[in-house]
């Protein structure tokens, strides 16, 4: 990035910060603050170990410094500006989840467009929120578009802020179904002298598996017999006999299966359950980035600040407006949508922002400012003379 580009972006980031009110996170004074300034060279130096007292008023600080990136700590400290972590006196930390398109198993970052990655990431976000809200019943959730390739969720419920790193790892493993004991999803219940194998339907991955099983029961009950049998026989190890037993149980004894009883369908049903469990895990886990959640002293991007690698706004998303949220429209700062600027692009490319595709030629182009900022922040273009 050349000097002209850097000066331009810093100036425009400053204009942005002067035009908005940044809403600080709760207990902002107990947190550590950090930022990366617009310095020359490839190295990035984070200025950290600062408290709000060091910064002065947050809005003034951002308007004055117009940093390239701005962060605050998930943790709250007795003395957030102490220069060592030990000296800070850790008190508690928000429980933070990070979904990054780079970590989505089905996404090849080389072959997928930026927009495509964000769509896939939002699906993962929905799965994450389902677990956080249904299973964990977290209520104080802040959902944030990171301004880059993903989403953050900050959880600030009372019961979780004092959890240590190990406890947070348990939460991560639950969300990702790491080390899930598939055999353990089915337990043996003793009633009098008889035992009965039962799916653990009251919560966790057992409940999710059970829901998927019941969907299949309903679907196959409504399906023509031969088609239903064929469907079941697609599974390894399930032949004609087992398929018939399973389907018989589905049709004659659905209430038993609704109650979690997996004895009724014979060994075939138990195989089916395991296979459904594996599909359920595949479909409903969210590939969160473990270290972000387990590191209780991590710095996280400040919502409302600009991401220096895209020029997009780190955007808080109203929980009810998640479906409509389109990062490539809603995270574009208004400040950068008014005019056009000239840029010098490294190569031919295309940018999708504000619902329109802008084709870029190699060399000089005149583009909407947000498109220019995006390309310059990514390092794909330099500022050209107007």
């Amino acid at each position, binding site marked *: 990035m050349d000097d002209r580009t850097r000066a331009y972006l810093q100036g425009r980031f400053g204009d942005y910060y002067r035009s908005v009110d940044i809403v600080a996170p709760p207990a902002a004074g107990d947190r550590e603050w950090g930022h990366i300034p617009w310095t020359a060279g490839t190295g990035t130096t984070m200025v950290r170990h600062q408290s709000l007292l060091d910064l002065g008023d947050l809005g003034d600080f951002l308007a004055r410094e117009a940093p390239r990136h701005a962060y605050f700590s998930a943790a709250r400290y007795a003395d957030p500006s102490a220069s060592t972590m030990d000296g800070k006196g850790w008190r508690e930390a928000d429980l933070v989840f990070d979904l990054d398109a780079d970590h989505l198993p089905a996404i090849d970052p080389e072959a997928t467009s930026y927009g495509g990655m964000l769509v896939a990431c939002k699906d993962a976000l929905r799965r994450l929120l389902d677990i956080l809200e249904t299973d964990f*019943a977290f209520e104080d959730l802040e959902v944030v578009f990171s301004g880059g390739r993903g989403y953050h969720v900050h959880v600030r419920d009372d*019961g979780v802020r004092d959890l240590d790193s*190990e406890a947070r790892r348990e939460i991560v493993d639950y969300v990702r179904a790491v*080390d899930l004991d598939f055999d353990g999803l089915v337990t043996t219940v003793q009633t009098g002298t008889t035992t009965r194998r039962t799916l653990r339907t009251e919560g966790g991955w057992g409940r999710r598996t059970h829901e998927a099983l019941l969907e299949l029961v309903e679907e196959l009950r409504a399906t023509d017999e031969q088609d239903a049998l064929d469907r079941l026989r697609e599974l390894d190890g399930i032949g004609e006999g087992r398929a018939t037993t399973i389907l018989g149980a589905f049709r004659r004894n659905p209430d038993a299966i609704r109650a979690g009883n997996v004895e009724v369908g014979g060994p075939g049903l138990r195989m089916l359950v395991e296979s459904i469990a594996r599909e359920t895990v595949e479909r409903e886990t969210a590939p969160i980035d473990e270290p972000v959640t387990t590191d209780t002293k991590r710095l996280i991007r400040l919502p409302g600040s600009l991401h220096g690698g895209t020029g997009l706004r780190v955007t808080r998303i109203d929980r009810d407006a998640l479906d409509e949220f389109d990062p490539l429209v809603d995270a574009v700062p208004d400040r950068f949508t008014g005019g056009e600027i000239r840029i010098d692009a490294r190569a031919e490319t295309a940018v999708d922002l504000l619902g329109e595709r802008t084709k870029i030629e190699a060399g000089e182009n005149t583009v909407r400012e947000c498109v220019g900022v995006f390309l310059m922040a990514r390092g794909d273009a330099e500022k050209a003379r107007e």
Partner: protein
Amino acid sequence: MNPLHARYPFFDAAREAVEASDVSLAALVAESAPAVARGRERVERALRAGTTAPEDPGEWSPRDELLSYPIARILVSLVDSAAAVRKYAAAEAATAHERFVTDFEAGDDGLRSTGRRAASLDEFLDEFGLDDEVTAEPPTTARRPETFRVGLGTYLRLADAGWGERWRLVNREVAAGAVRIEREELYRLLEEAVRRRVAEGLPFEVRGSAGGDRLAEALEPEIESLRELLADRGRTWRIDTVAPELFPPCMKHLLERARREAELEAHSAFALTAFLTGIGMDTDEIVELYRDSPLDEEAIRYQTEYLRDETGSQYASPSCATMQAYGDCVNRDDRCETISHPMTYYEAALADADGVVDWRERAEESEA
């Protein structure tokens, strides 16, 4: 005084009762009161046998019991070793576990046949601030609730993923912010709550004031003997061969009893598991060795994990003297006359034997 305080001296109310009484711990020490001897026994038994229950319950009054707890805390602080604190807290918790299970199972009238008031589960939950965190599911078939829901945060704070697969959150039924647990698992969480309460503030500075220095000085003989006990435990054997036919008679006997009967007394189970751990068996192997016994796998696992501390060193298995004291020294043979520790017996037996095939390899061969 409230007899529950003697039984559960770590209760807040018990501590307050001691503080409110005019008893001076220094005076107790100066006059060698029974509470001091009992306090020393608490720590001694914690290091030796993983329990703080008295060897002879008839010997001590409830007052001795209650006052022995702060004395034991002073002793552990003066011994000043992380291992002593860890083992002491674990032993107090294990003892409390045995006691509250007895109390909770005593029935709803709160009175056992002895007429002693038993603690209730609600009292315990209340004591540890868990009353709002734990909800009983309505019983289905049993008379009392066998399943509970505990708040997610509380579960994660108390449960340790190292206790086994089923304690991992991922393997739990979690719904609406609560984790489903069985009654025995709730007891395990309560034990952990006790352990943490006991460990809190240990070790503390006893010396540093004139009174504290005098106290420390007066307790010097006790401290000395407890330190020796720790050092004695420090000896580790470099054995990593499992050959049950060469075990000393006492261990053979215990192993046989474990296979035949479900319940070994706590000290016997401790001695056997410590011996098996000491000869290099890991938890899975010990479980496998007990395979045909009626012993509960989780209980074995728990005890084995407990015997191993984080540093990887182990609780030494009891010496012949301790085995004799507990009546576990049986079927003495000629070799027994030459040794003073079951481990030494086994070491010598291994050295004398030819072509020993490790039991673990035999197990693998028979599977193949």
